[in-house]
């Protein structure tokens, strides 16, 4: 085996091990950076352009939300996710919404429906296709919706759900993601850096 091949084989094995570790521990660890290969993966946006998480990184931080079209949980939070995304994109946060679901098993999660949703919901941020579900796997994402917020140094500052009341927006007591965004914009560590919420399992492509 040539050296170059050996190096890439080792890199592939190391990458796979990293992805496995992320999944086995419930996602990227706080304080770690996004896996390089995943951050640089080009994904098709609803406007037809290809872009990566690295491309959208903001000067104050970067927010990646794994979501989709079909999941009732994602739908319930959708308007709040879009509002946060649009608002904080104007505050130095790079934002990208990622759909990693397999549309062959869930047709509603197809590209055209993503375009329709982006338009009807007034998304001003990219909504992209994770075409192999590889980015979601590398992040250790498992549900929709699931947010990963990186600080300006690119380190994971918040991971989890949107707020504490999916069904009734007017009864939300704790806005986990918004509070974390405010902290990161201010250059501080979020007071609640990790949360969990019920969600649809990501329909990974095989």
């Amino acid at each position, binding site marked *: 085996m040539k050296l170059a091949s050996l190096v890439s084989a080792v890199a592939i094995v190391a990458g796979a091990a990293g992805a496995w570790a992320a999944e086995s521990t*419930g*996602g990227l660890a706080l304080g770690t950076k996004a896996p390089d290969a995943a951050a640089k993966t080009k994904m098709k946006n609803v406007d037809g352009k290809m872009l990566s998480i690295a491309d959208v990184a903001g000067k104050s931080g970067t927010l990646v939300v794994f979501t989709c079209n079909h999941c*009732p949980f994602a739908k319930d939070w959708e308007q709040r996710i879009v509002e946060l995304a649009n608002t904080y994109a104007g505050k130095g946060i790079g934002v990208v919404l990622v759909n990693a679901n397999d549309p062959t098993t869930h047709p509603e999660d197809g590209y055209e429906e993503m375009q329709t949703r982006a338009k009807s919901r007034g998304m001003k941020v990219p909504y992209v296709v994770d075409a192999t579900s590889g980015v979601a796997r590398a992040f250790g994402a*498992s*549900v929709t919706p*699931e947010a990963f917020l990186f600080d300006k140094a690119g380190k994971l500052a918040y991971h989890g*759900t949107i707020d*504490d009341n*999916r*069904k009734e927006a007017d009864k939300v007591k704790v806005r986990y993601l918004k509070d974390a965004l405010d902290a990161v914009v201010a250059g501080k560590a979020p007071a609640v850096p990790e*949360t*969990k*919420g*019920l*969600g*649809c*399992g*990501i329909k990974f492509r095989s």
Partner: protein
Amino acid sequence: MTSALLLATVMAAEVAAPVQVEVADLPAIMAAVKAPGAAAVLVNVWATWCEPCREEMPDLVRFYREHRAQGLRMVLVSADDEDQRAQVARVLAGLRFDGAAFIKRGDDMAFIDALDPSWKGSLPATFLFDGRGARTQSWHGLVTYDDLRAGVSGLLDKGKKPKKPQTKPRRE
């Protein structure tokens, strides 16, 4: 009444058997899980709109029916909205489920961590507790009949035989 009509009537009566679905918060659900008297307790978290949940549910219910004589209890917790109570009951009646059925109310995080801190909240999810209320196994995602059989092995009352399976397990 013809025998065909009688059979149809009996079948309709079985399908229509009411299922009590209680909207409950975490303490009430965990009280049902940890109440004494069972050798093992299966907890499944599902929703009527969740396709994989609906896919595995017939096997889960069948497994429960075949092993409850050996001390297996089953607690189903739906993540449906409270106003979907009738729909939840209809689905479970169609499966002739007669165990404990809840619609979860309240904070997700406390609920998730009470069942299994390593669970991230994706549906479906199934948890096995022993008769003392200690969790022995979790399945995050689809569970199979064989998974369940392996999981309860050693927990159930070996003095009693399981009810003979009505049909061949689907995923053997």
